[in-house]
């Protein structure tokens, strides 16, 4: 079955930001190793602390939309898991609508922050004096894509689809362990 192009594009977007988050993670590790080894051999990685802080933000926020879609954002299931299907459907829509408002609010104001940084030529305070909007893009893009993914989900659920964050119960023991190991 060919999936429709918008669907493909959106899923591609979540996947891409997830991959970028993963690359930032690898980046933090490499940078910290360089810093640690460099100190022993008398070689200083300029601004490693700041860059790793920015990569930390990128790892965290770029991955949120992907995490939301795969159902790894935690919520309290005590009550809603026990609702009858009809009430459950209505609740999911209300919750998703609320989530859309909140993530929209967050996305709007992170855009606003980055725009201000750009407009007023704010620079990072520290060794590396690059325009601060560049690292802030990680937060901003992450928040905007999260908003898109929540709206996407809201539209899908209203259209009668099962929410993607609600995953099929695992079938094998291995699957269960794999999934539960992702809780802290």
């Amino acid at each position, binding site marked *: 079955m060919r999936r429709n192009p918008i669907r493909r594009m959106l899923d591609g977007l979540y996947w891409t930001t997830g991959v970028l988050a993963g690359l930032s993670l690898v980046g933090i590790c490499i940078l910290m190793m360089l810093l640690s080894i460099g100190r022993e051999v008398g070689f200083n990685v300029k601004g490693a602390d700041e860059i790793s802080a920015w990569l930390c933000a990128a790892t965290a926020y770029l991955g949120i939309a992907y*995490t939301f879609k795969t159902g790894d954002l935690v919520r*309290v299931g005590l009550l809603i898991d026990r609702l009858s299907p009809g009430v459950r459907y209505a609740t999911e829509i209300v919750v998703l609508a609320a989530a859309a408002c909140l993530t929209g609010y967050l996305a709007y104001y992170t855009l606003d922050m980055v725009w201000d940084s750009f407009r007023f030529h704010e620079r990072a305070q520290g060794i590396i004096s690059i325009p601060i909007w560049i690292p802030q893009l990680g937060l901003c893009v992450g928040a905007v894509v999260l908003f898109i993914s929540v709206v996407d989900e809201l539209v899908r659920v209203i259209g009668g689809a099962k929410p993607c964050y609600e995953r099929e119960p695992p079938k094998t023991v291995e699957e269960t362990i794999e999934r539960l190991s992702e809780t802290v």
Partner: protein
Amino acid sequence: MDNIELALLLLIALTVLLMGGLWIGLSLLATGILSMLVIPDLPIGKVLATKFWDSGASWTLAALPLFIWMGEILFRTRMSEEIFRGLSPWLGWLPGRLMHVNVIGCGIFGSVSGSSAATCATIAKIALPELKKRGYDEDVSLGSLAGAGTLGILIPPSITMVVYAVAADVSIIQLFLAGFLPGFLVMALYSGYIVVWSLLHPEKTPPMDIHMTFREKLRESKNLIPITLLILLVCASLIFGWATATECAAWGVVGSLAIAGWSGMLTWDSFWASVIGTVRVNAMIMLILGSASFLSAGMAYTGIPRGLAEWVAGFHLSPYALIAALTAMYILLGTALDGISMIVLTTVVVLPMIKSAGFDLVWFGIFMVIVIEMAEVSPPVGFNLFVLQTMSGRDSMDVARAALPFFFLLVVAVAIITVWPDIVMIVPKWAYPD
């Protein structure tokens, strides 16, 4: 509106949002916005964006994804078999025999992993079927695995401790150091319980079926060398201050990759799976942390935390009574929330009380970790119980009942560290004498 009314209103709003199924991070965000609405002329949206940026772009916090990653890599290796095979020949003489593999195995894995459910799952994967096959009592086996799995967050590195350290603004390294002795204390309590139980029920412990010479035993254990080296490397760099927590975490990742490569389990797929797994866990935690820092800012504007601290101080509770009350509160909260959310939600209001009662914030971090461990082994949302329920195929109430003695042992651990706080503080004070 006075503060008590506002506090109640926010509490009700938060409860409704959480119970309604709104994601925890977003519930905190919404409550934060509500708390700021009562303050005139506050640019709420700008505060929100700044708080998210400041809490995410933090060099200290970079240790969090790295420690998560370390656990994710090791989880995908054959470590569980190696730990079981390496430990079991040495434990036959103890009353309870191989049952102690559960406790010590979780302790070992806990010192490379920062997650309770992952520790529990890793050790249970092999120990549960092996012990059952040999005829050990399944209830004690399940209970000890549930309880010992929580050592993952008490013995450093620990994801929970990183989150607390950031929320309470204490040093991650000091908190890690403070976790060692309480970790051994909990292990001793668990193993002690197993010993006493087996002495009382001698018929339920099968005879030792591993007969090896000393040399053979050593050969069985040689696969434990890499993990031991990794633990020593991480511990030593923490204690002697060779590296910052973040660098130490990076070394842990590289060491784990080396172990995975050495045992032939490192493929491109497993590497990438560990990266994506880390991104998901980390993003989940960071959304909560970002929102929580925003909510804390809102609470600070309202003055609720200070008001509550004064209100509680008005009761003139003894420190012990305060800790008892908080323990009860956290056990209750733990029935609905996960550990990370419990920390970020409560630190802002509880820490001022704790400080004014004269407790050390590092000590309180260890206290919180232990009460979170209790939540992990008690229904209805104890993650370790879920793990064991699926792995054993037993009913959830059976598993919860099997874990109950170990829940009470954690209560005992809290009592012990409250009466003798030095158990927690002696290592960090020794390493950082100031």
